[in-house]
């Protein structure tokens, strides 16, 4: 089971490109604080940037919740991006590399999924989109060996 450690969770608005900068800086600070390595920090910050921009551009704005989590003694960071936008009609298509309904590269969603350890997306047409991602400090947690 994954527990939120609750202590330093935060909720950041995503309504402008200044907010995108703030989201990146917050995730950078949190990952550094938790002891993520530089590459893992950069991956999670980049994934956050993609998902926050999607919430802004496609979802008409939203928010990011950020919370440190632990499981079996391993620490990680969980980010939840949500918006009340139009939702995604075809998730599989949206996740595939190169698909864009706008003029992007269509790499954001699929790329973000590759950059994190856990990724889930829930999208309902006319209701909105929620994307939750988690990365752990040294690889995804594995079940402890039975003795």
């Amino acid at each position, binding site marked *: 089971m994954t527990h939120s450690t609750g202590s330093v969770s935060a909720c950041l608005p995503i309504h402008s490109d200044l907010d995108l900068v703030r989201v990146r800086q917050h995730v950078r600070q949190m990952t550094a604080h938790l002891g993520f390595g*530089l*590459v893992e920090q*950069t991956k999670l910050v980049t994934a956050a940037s*993609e998902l926050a921009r999607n919430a802004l551009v496609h979802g008409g704005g939203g928010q990011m919740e950020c919370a440190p989590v632990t499981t079996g003694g391993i620490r990680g960071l969980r980010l939840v991006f949500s918006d009340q936008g139009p939702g995604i009609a075809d998730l599989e298509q949206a996740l595939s590399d190169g698909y864009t309904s706008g003029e992007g590269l269509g*790499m954001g969603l*699929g790329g973000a999924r*590759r950059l994190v350890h856990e990724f889930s997306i829930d999208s309902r047409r006319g209701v909105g989109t929620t994307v939750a991602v988690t990365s752990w400090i040294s690889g995804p947690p594995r079940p402890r060996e039975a003795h």
Partner: protein
Amino acid sequence: MTAASTFPYEGHVPVLRLGGVLLVTLQGDLYDSTAEQLRQDIGETASDSAVTGVVIDLSGVEIVDSFMGRVLSDVAAMTRLLAAQTVVAGMRPAVAITLVELGLTLPGLRTALSTEDAMRQLGDEGSVLPRAGRPHRERP
């Protein structure tokens, strides 16, 4: 205000002209609007003069996402149309690793370890800059 290294860059990124080369040094975290502006500035500067190369120094940049990646590709494509080369210099290893995993291959972008290295690459192709401390090579 935050420390210089993380200070978000809003507004204008200076585009320096060194002989036939445009040198752009990016630092910290760029606003999307700043990146857009940069694409425009480079386009304008590159087209109104005999520019043969563009060097973008990324050594101070901590993240490149698909938005910034697109700006870099666009600059490369645009300068190619103007018969010039774009070289991205000093990309941090963590940024490079992340870009690959993100799936951005940045076609048309050449890379160099440092700005000096980028200048040398452009110079060796007979483009630009007389190089200090090196004899000027004549070309046939």
